[in-house]
Each structure stands twice: as structure tokens, then as C-alpha cells.
């Protein structure tokens, strides 16, 4: 029987993962960047029209002296980022062995810059951490092809980093609720306020059931605090099931409040056996491993 390993052991952080998982994560992440820039956070581009008197640069943006966004600068950043992200998708899907890591690094750096443009006008969003980790660890892994079953420690480390970041997002969000909201967060009208501010047909009826909202507040906090346990689950099937449950939770939040954390959802996919996608016909697992290992 394998010994119980966890975040306290080095072998857990470097447990080999299939390169196919990295390849699919690259495709998903770079596609998300394109969707995010064109649709879900197209408001970021609007900041180019806002006077610099309303620009409140964040600590890291001030540290590296990023210039205040201008209409031209934001447009240039927007389209450069879309171009490298599209290139990242194409290179990964086509299995090109050159330039893939440089493209990945460019996506990560430009996306972080884009986030500074997004968050420097009086409101910081908190759903991007795991995705930023994903964007920055993807280029640390070498060439990876969709469906590739070979495992490597570098891929394992990258997958782990993203998994820990995704789980930390839940746990630390619960911590922040206790730090900023206190126990009033779970016992107050937190969700009622959210529904009043941004309710939909799916959620408006809950305003008549304050008891239900109260229970949901406790459920959310307890689930977030329990999230790190996901790192200790060994059965892939159980992990996939729990992650599917988390996706269902985020879908309900979207229907109820119109809030969706797409980048976080992509990072969460690091828990799924994505290497099974696009596997090429081979039946016997040994044959797969051999042909992969013997690749050029």
C-alpha cells in the first residue's frame, strides 16, 4: 500500500502528472484569455477612456512604475494579448515544438498587466489568483501534446501549484469573510443584500425565505473552509465528482447573482484527468506509454 502523502512531503508536490493534462490546460487557459478579453471582461478596455484622475494604481503596478493606461495603450495591450493567446492555442493544438514556452510566458505577463489595468480604478476582483498561477506555471513545463500520456515531475509540480492555488482561493476567501465580515457574515443578511443588489429571476424568490439564505451562508463558509481536504483525496473518480459539484455551485451562483469566476473555473480543471482527452486510439496503456516515450 502506498504511504499517505500530502503537502508536507516533497514527493507530493512533484508527483508526476501526464503531459496531456498540461496541453489541455494550455488550450483552455489561452482560449479563456481570448473569451475574457472579447466578452466577459470587455469592460477593462473601457478604462482607456477614463481620465487618469480616477486611476488608482495598485501596489505592484506602482512598484514597477506601470504607465497610466491611455486609450491607445489599452487597445495595444488588448490586441497583443489576444494575438499571443491565439498563438498559444494554435501552437499547442498543432504540436509545434518551438516557441511554445515563450508564448506562454508572454500570455502570463501581459495578462497580469491587463489585470493591473482592470483593478486600478477602485475595485479589485478576487477570482484571478489561481488563474494567474496557472498562466505562470504553464510555461515552466516543456513541450506537451494533447492526449500525451507520458508523465513528468515538472508537469506534476505545475498541476499541484494550480490545485493548491484553487483550493487556497476558497479557504482564504472564507478566512477573509471572518476577518472582514466577522460572524455577522454567516448570521446577517449577506446573501439578501447580494440578491437585492444583483438578483435575477432565479434568486429573487429567496428574499422571502431569510432562513434558507441563512443556512446557505453557513454552508458556503463551511464548504470553503473544507476545500483543502480536496488535496488529500486519492481517488481520481472522487476528486472529479467533487470538482463537478463545485462547478454546479458556481453555475448556481451565476444564475442567482450573475457572478461567474470563469478564470477560476479553468484553474479548477487542473484536478480533472484532462490527459484522457484526445487520446489517440491505442488500446493497451503500455503501448501508449512506449510510443509517447519514443517520440522525436
Amino acid at each position, binding site marked *: 500500500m502506498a504511504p499517505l502523502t500530502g503537502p508536507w512531503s516533497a514527493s507530493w508536490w512533484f508527483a508526476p502528472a501526464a503531459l496531456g493534462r498540461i496541453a489541455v490546460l494550455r488550450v483552455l487557459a489561452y482560449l479563456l484569455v481570448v473569451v475574457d478579453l472579447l466578452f466577459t471582461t470587455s469592460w477593462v478596455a473601457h478604462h482607456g477612456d*477614463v481620465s487618469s484622475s480616477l486611476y488608482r494604481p495598485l501596489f505592484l503596478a506602482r512598484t514597477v512604475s506601470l504607465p497610466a493606461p491611455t486609450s491607445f495603450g489599452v487597445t495595444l495591450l488588448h490586441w497583443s494579448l489576444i494575438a499571443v493567446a491565439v498563438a498559444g492555442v494554435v501552437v499547442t493544438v498543432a504540436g509545434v515544438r518551438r516557441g511554445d514556452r515563450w508564448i506562454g510566458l508572454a500570455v502570463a505577463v501581459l495578462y497580469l498587466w491587463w489585470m493591473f489595468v482592470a483593478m486600478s*480604478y477602485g475595485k479589485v476582483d478576487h477570482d484571478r489568483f489561481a488563474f494567474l498561477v496557472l498562466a505562470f506555471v504553464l510555461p515552466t513545463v516543456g513541450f506537451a501534446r494533447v492526449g500525451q500520456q507520458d508523465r513528468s515531475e515538472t508537469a506534476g509540480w505545475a498541476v499541484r501549484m494550480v490545485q493548491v*492555488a484553487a483550493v487556497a482561493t476558497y479557504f*482564504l476567501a472564507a478566512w477573509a469573510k471572518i*476577518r472582514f465580515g466577522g460572524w*455577522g457574515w454567516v448570521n446577517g443578511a449577506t446573501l439578501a443584500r447580494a440578491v437585492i443588489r444583483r438578483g435575477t429571476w432565479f434568486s429573487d424568490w429567496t428574499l422571502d425565505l431569510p432562513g434558507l439564505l441563512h443556512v446557505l451562508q453557513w454552508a458556503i463558509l463551511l464548504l470553503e473552509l473544507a476545500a483543502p481536504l480536496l488535496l488529500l483525496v486519492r481517488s481520481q473518480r472522487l476528486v472529479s465528482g467533487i470538482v463537478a459539484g463545485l462547478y454546479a455551485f458556481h453555475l448556481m451562483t451565476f444564475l442567482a447573482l450573475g457572478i461567474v469566476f470563469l478564470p477560476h473555473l479553468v484553474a479548477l480543471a487542473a484536478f480533472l484527468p484532462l490527459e484522457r482527452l484526445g487520446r489517440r486510439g491505442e488500446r493497451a496503456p503500455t503501448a501508449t506509454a512506449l510510443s509517447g516515450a519514443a517520440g522525436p
Partner: protein
Amino acid sequence: MFGALLAGTLWGQDDHFPFGPFRMYATTQRLDGRTSWYRIDAVTETGEVVFLSGASYGMRRAELEGQVPRFVEDPSLLGAIAEAHAERRPDAPGLVELRLVKRSQQMEGGRPAGEPTDRVMATWRP
């Protein structure tokens, strides 16, 4: 990196993005308190009072709300919103006045009670 994240959660503020605390909806609402949000109303050349959507001046409501103390202290800053609106909506009627409005909703037992009330927090004229 995770150390920075933990420190950010314990002691950090939003300013430390991406290592700040994850305070998405972390604020508390008392069951019998008031919940409030902000909006920009504008008076057009023809004397009509219109609501300005965030997209019309390039900012989200939460960003407006994040800078409320600055607008209250220096209402001339609302001029930057009028400027951005003119840039983004060149065909819209001209604006002769901007108002930062705080809209409040009384809550009783965790449910909205009565109609929301408005209070003008800052006014700007060109």
C-alpha cells in the same frame, strides 16, 4: 508565493493584488440594517434627469463605489466621469449636471422593507 498569499490574507489589503485577501462578498449585512449602493444621475441640456450606466463612462458600479470618498471630498472629480461619458457616448445629449446618488434600502428581518430612498452625495456642474 503561497507565503505572500497567506500574509496578504492576514494583513494585506486590496492594494496588494494578486496577493491581497480574497474578500469577495466578505462584507456583513445586518438583518435589520440598511443596504445601500451608488449611482450617477445626470441632468441633460433639455432638463431631463437620466441614469448613467457604468459602461457609458467606462467604470463599473463597484469602481464608482470604491472611490466614493474621493468624489464626496472633491466633487469636481465627477467632471472626469462627464468627460469619459462624452468620449464614449459622443451622440448622447450634453450633460449640464452630474449627481452621485446613494440609494438605500431598509431591511427588516433580512427582507427589504418599503421603497428605497435616495440621497445626493456630490454634485458637479461644468
